[in-house]
């Protein structure tokens, strides 16, 4: 053992108090390890954070819905006891400027009637599509609950894992297997074209394929993410997405509370400036201000770029790995506009009631609209008429806004990190971007502009500067097919280890990554504990 190990005060130091870092810390602490979490900001949660930005209004500043938070993590860490409280999104609404709009409800028959406005054929096919996606989702789901299989490795345990996936693939019916192949390679548009004829239905369905990527609905590889909508368990299709009571920050707080209960120490306003590597070994971290903290293992919850090219430094990395990481596509493509409003928006196509606002509202009237939005981004500008995914959490969770008033959260795509003026010019374009979003919404819900009490606009540049997401990528690296599973974040390094001994990764930039899932953090902790590395 080296001296560093002897003098280590902690078994593990987690860099970054995002939700994955906290999950990792909780698992390690639960196993009896002495754990320290270091968070740069004054609040925990990274991109899963709630902040009262306007008096009485609590915003889920970045990540705004909880998708696929693994049920076994909720159970292992007793998160319900620690205050986790999820409210399912009931439905999905696609408004139109002219036309009836489309609501997809939890009731099959009601959804069928809605779709039949556009196509009787699609209305009938829609449930069949759901069934096939559910079968395929059941095939894919074990992949996100375990470390990524590695087809390049010949070690017996790895081969057994592969065999297991192969066995399950064989259990799929032939047409499901064919569909799976298509799903893994096709564009969302092409895949949906095989099933549906109506643009009004395909457009909102295809959106889940592009969220967080710098790709269009017609780009190959975007179909796969459609599956994520069907991975909810007991919860079924419409329950795989939910609001966290009190905003997504509450999820992070619940995890932090569990971690503390297991004995982890969590420090906020403790910015790690450097991960110290000596002789190929990660030994300590240096905080802003010079404090140096040692641990047997250093675990980074930050994205791969920030971790390796920032905190560690390229000079400590094998050349090939450094190049792979540099090539790992971040390229944030989305922004966030959060609004405090004094009344609910009234949509042209559904002026009555608020039932249709209890889920998500997708501004995605047609495939052409989405592709046009991408066109502008391709050439270095934000979309003048972007895809917007809007939610009104205060409608089902009144705790986040004063009575009768509401918070509106808008996920906006496309807003490329690299605008043609250069990313550092985003601050000058910020309000124009915010205006484009409000102008777009105003077309669908006239009067919305006048109801705004407060507006927060977050560009990819802001996400990088404030939250620490390189290039503002919300998933710590694009969730495109070539960057998933055994390639995430680099070929051969998809099992949370790094080329530097005692340095581990636990963030969304590792398998399975993406969204408030917690799987990366939990699987990293399990890998460390299994190897007795901590």
């Amino acid at each position, binding site marked *: 053992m080296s001296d560093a190990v002897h003098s280590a005060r902690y078994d593990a130091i987690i860099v970054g108090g995002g939700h994955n870092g906290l999950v990792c810390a909780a698992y390690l602490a639960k196993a009896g390890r002495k754990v320290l979490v270091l968070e740069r900001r004054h609040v925990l949660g990274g991109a899963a954070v709630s902040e009262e930005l306007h008096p009485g209004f609590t915003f889920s500043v970045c990540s705004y819905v909880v998708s696929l938070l693994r049920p076994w993590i*909720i*159970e292992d860490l007793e998160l319900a006891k620690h205050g986790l409280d*999820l409210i399912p999104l009931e439905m999905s609404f696609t408004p139109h400027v002219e036309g009836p709009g489309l609501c997809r409800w939890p*009731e099959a028959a009601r959804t069928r009637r809605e779709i039949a406005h556009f196509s009787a054929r699609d209305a009938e096919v829609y449930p069949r599509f759901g069934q096939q996606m559910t079968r395929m989702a*059941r095939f894919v789901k074990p992949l996100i609950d375990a470390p990524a299989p590695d087809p390049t490795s010949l070690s017996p345990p790895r081969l057994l894992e592969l065999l297991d996936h192969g066995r399950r693939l064989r259990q799929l019916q032939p047409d499901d297997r064919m569909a799976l192949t298509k799903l893994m390679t096709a564009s969302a548009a092409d895949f949906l074209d095989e099933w549906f004829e109506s643009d009004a239905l395909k457009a909102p369905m295809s959106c889940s394929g592009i969220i967080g990527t710098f790709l269009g609905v017609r780009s190959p590889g975007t179909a796969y993410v459609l599956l994520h909508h069907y991975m909810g368990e007991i919860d079924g299709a419409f329950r795989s997405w939910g609001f966290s009571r009190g905003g997504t920050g509450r999820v992070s707080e619940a995890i932090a509370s569990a971690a503390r209960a297991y004995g982890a120490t969590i420090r906020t306003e403790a910015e790690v400036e450097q991960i110290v590597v000596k002789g190929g070994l990660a030994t300590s971290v240096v905080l802003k201000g010079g404090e140096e903290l040692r641990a047997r293992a250093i675990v980074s919850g930050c994205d791969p770029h920030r971790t390796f090219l920032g905190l560690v430094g390229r000079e400590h990395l094998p050349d090939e790995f450094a190049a792979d990481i540099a090539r790992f596509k971040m390229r944030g493509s989305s922004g966030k506009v959060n609004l405090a409003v004094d009344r609910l928006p009234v949509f042209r196509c559904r002026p009555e009631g608020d039932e249709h606002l209890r889920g998500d509202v997708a501004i995605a009237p047609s495939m052409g609209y989405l592709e046009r939005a991408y066109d502008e981004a391709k050439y270095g500008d934000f979309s003048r008429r972007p895809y917007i995914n809007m939610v009104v959490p205060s*409608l*089902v*969770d009144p705790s986040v806004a004063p009575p009768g008033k509401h918070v509106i959260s808008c996920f906006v795509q496309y807003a490329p990190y690299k605008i043609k003026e250069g990313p550092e010019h985003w601050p000058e374009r910020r309000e124009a971007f915010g205006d484009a979003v409000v102008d777009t919404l105003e077309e669908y819900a006239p009067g919305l502009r006048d109801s705004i009490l407060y507006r927060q606009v977050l560009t990819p540049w802001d996400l990088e500067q404030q939250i620490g997401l390189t290039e503002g990528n919300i998933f710590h690296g694009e969730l495109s097919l070539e960057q998933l599973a055994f390639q995430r974040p680099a070929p051969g390094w998809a099992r949370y280890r790094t080329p530097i001994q005692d340095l581990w990764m636990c963030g969304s930039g590792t398998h399975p990554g993406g969204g408030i899932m917690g799987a990366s953090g939990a699987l990293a902790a399990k890998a460390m504990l299994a190897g007795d590395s901590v």
Partner: protein
Amino acid sequence: MPLSTPFHERTSAACTSLHWKDWAGYHAVCRYEHSHEPEYHAVRHAAGLLDVSPLFKIDVTGRDAAAFLAWVTARDPGRLKIGQVGYGCWCDEDGKVLDDGTLTRWDEQHFRITSADPSYAWLLQNASGFDVRLVDRTDEIAGLALQGPTSRAILASVVDGAASGDVGSLRFFRAMRARVAGSPVEITRTGYTGDLGYELFMPAKKALAVYDALLEAGRPHGLLPLGLDALDVLRIEAGFVLMGVDYYSARTCLIEAQKSTPTELGLGWTVDLERAPFLGQRALRREQQTGAAWALVGLALDWDEFVALHDRWGLPPQLPAGASRLPVPVFAGRRQVGYATSSTWSPILKRFIALASVRAEHAAPGSVLRMEVTVQFERRSVQAVVTPTPFFDPPRKRARAGDDA
């Protein structure tokens, strides 16, 4: 044909699902929309408004009111302060439970009994020799349960004038009087959801005005009308037993095995045994010596096993929508040691939970039992660990206004 409650005009207009059931001879809404879930979540995150008019309401007044109730109920009503509410049950001579409900002490000589089953004739029968007057006011008083974290704010905003502050300071299981929309209203901080909540009683003639005022004031607070389907999930999470589901009134039982003592229902804490004689006291004392044979417990089911049972068939785990009242056997090893009477997936706890009656030797928290489940028409079982109830017990339920809920 069941009767309509005083709120029928409003509830029937809102009940687009047309799902109703008969509750004690009244039409009662199961769920307003296609699914009970928005209502469930409203109660846990905002508020829900339930028509509880079918509850039986009996006023007990007179010089001997306290003494009479001390004789008929297992809980000593003499210990209730004025303006206090007590939950308890009443038993037959053999100490077997007839019904459970609440007693509200409005005055030194005025109590109100609220219960699920009619007890008027039984009370009358036991009243001879006491200077009391019993009035069944079930039909003339309409009732509403306003439940959920925003219920206090809603209620405070509708009561007239100074009473608004009283709503804020009304403690758990206390009662007050106020006026809402021009109607006198009796308010108790009670409910059947295990959450912060109130029950309101008002003259049937004024019912609609109160209902409208609450719904209007509740809109900015996320209030939804609440039906019985969501209530069933909520009350299981709260660990509340339901007569006719989790136990049967001794009055309606054909055989002894169907009857239960308060202790067997987990209601032993409501029995004040050491006091002047009351109905069932002797039998309950005997039981205290020998120990109860049965216990009503909470069960937490093993989700992984449940998933694995479905996996064998290539099925995703499937639960009935909402709570199940299908009684199923509970085993210790291969031997049946009890039966689960209510079960549900708890959305807020992310757990599959049940209420069960088991033989007393298997009732200790942590006891590992198995509960029958049917998967793809096959009878199987999953591990079920005895868990203390309430399963869900937020601090806001008892907290004073201003405390963090």
